[in-house]
């Protein structure tokens, strides 16, 4: 049994790594950086326009931040690993996943607004320290939370495999009466507390770019405009993460096609939990490592 799990998980990982290798990451990353730089400059121009009371600047700013959010999300990190891995493991519908994705990006924007509101205005903490706090404390906290969710997925996958093997023994003993666990035993993201955990772990760490937009807007006495711009930035990020969530759901459904019966579905669900979990844990620990060193 364990050999079989190991073989399947190993196999899926190998395929995943091969797929990862085929992708022209260097070109993608370089292209994303060039685009991000362009939109970052556009944001700067729009912010100066706001300082100069240019009425059109607010629209330029919001479209620039939305595009920035999208291209920024193209880089590795943030919530997309979690969204992708959890979407792979979960039984949640695409609609529910989409709502979760948008909510997590908006919550991330809200964290930025709250941080700047509380620390910058009330405690008079400067933007450099604000960015430091984010990078030093919130980023690793978020990675740790995301790794923990990955661990929960692995645990659920393993538990499901274990109970299936138990059920099989019982079935054998009872001459064909099935006492298998229901698929609900391994359902992920369908409960409220799963959804909250996902949103919080992503929202823990605001985007540094969002903090800067808010701080500069505040300096130009346009904090409200900054808030609006950060919300559109969140929507841009959500747009990218929606692509990831959709791909994961499609991958999950493709995997589901190979299931011939109920038990087959369960095997696949458990395996996807393990795969998604291992993916999330590996990548988030990789992101956490520099902080531990």
């Amino acid at each position, binding site marked *: 049994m364990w050999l079989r799990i190991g073989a399947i998980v*190993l196999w899926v*990982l190998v395929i995943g790594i091969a797929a*990862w290798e085929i992708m022209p990451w260097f070109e993608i990353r370089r292209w994303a950086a060039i685009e991000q730089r362009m939109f*970052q400059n556009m944001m*700067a121009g729009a912010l100066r326009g706001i300082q100069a009371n240019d009425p059109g600047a607010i629209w330029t700013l919001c479209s620039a931040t939305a595009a920035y959010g999208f291209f920024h999300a193209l*880089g*590795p990190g943030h919530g997309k690993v979690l969204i992708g891995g959890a979407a792979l493991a979960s039984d949640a519908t695409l609609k529910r996943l989409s709502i979760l994705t948008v909510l997590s990006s908006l919550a991330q924007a809200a964290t930025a607004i709250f941080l700047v509101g509380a620390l910058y205005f009330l405690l008079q903490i400067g933007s450099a320290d604000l960015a430091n706090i984010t990078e030093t404390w919130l980023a690793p906290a978020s990675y740790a939370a995301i790794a923990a969710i990955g661990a929960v997925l692995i645990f659920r996958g393993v538990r499901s495999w274990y109970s299936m093997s138990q059920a099989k023994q019982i079935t054998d003993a009872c001459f064909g009466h099935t006492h298998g666990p229901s698929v609900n035993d391994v359902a992920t993201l369908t409960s409220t507390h799963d959804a909250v955990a996902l949103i919080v772990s992503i929202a823990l760490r605001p985007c540094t770019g969002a903090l800067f937009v808010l701080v*500069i807007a505040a300096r130009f006495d346009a904090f409200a405009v900054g808030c609006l711009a950060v919300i559109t930035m969140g929507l841009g990020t959500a747009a990218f993460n929606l692509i990831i969530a959709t791909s994961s759901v499609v991958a999950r459904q493709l995997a589901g096609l190979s299931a011939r019966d109920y038990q087959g579905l369960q095997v696949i669900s458990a395996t996807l939990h393990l795969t998604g979990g291992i993916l999330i844990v590996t990548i988030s620990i990789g992101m956490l490592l520099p902080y531990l060193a």
Partner: protein
Amino acid sequence: MSHKLWGFIIVMMCLGEPAKAHPHVFVDARTGFIFGTDGLLEALHISWTYDEFTTLILFESLNLDPDGDGQLNDADRAAIIDGETKWSHTYKGDVYLEFAGQDYPLGRPEAAAVRLNGNQVEVSFDLPLLQPVRIDNAPVFLRLYDPFYYYAYSIVPPIAHANLPEDCQVQILSFEPSAAESTLQEKLAALGREDIPALENIGRLFSDEVQLTCG
């Protein structure tokens, strides 16, 4: 097999290191080599032109230009120089000089200056070599990179060429994805010998470099 696989995953994670962070600060860097009268390489000249957004952040974080005329006064310039060139002991300015295959030790910034080019701040300074060194036909490499990729440096041609000795040549080699990828493959191949590549040098795979040769 599984040992190799884990090794592979670890290497992917390590190699992914510079790609993990998002670049937030974009720097157009210009470089120069300063030779003494005795023909030895004495110092590097480095200039960083920050993107417009980072320039705004700099204005905000250092509280520059309080009168809002868009110009820098002497106090503003002093504040920028202070923030940009008074490095902590662990920070080496993201400047790496490779001489005979080794990181060559560099000093602290000298002769720092600040300019505003349109909407972009430019900081420049000289970085002395701890020991002046004679350059022969073995190339010396100058690389600018942030191991965490928070700062994305691109090396652009200098506006005016410094006075190089006659037999010296400078060439900017822009980052080539295929070259980085082949180095990555070599490192992966080395895994068979159970080597995990050193973390700290990964960033250079992704950086532009300036090659100096003399003679």
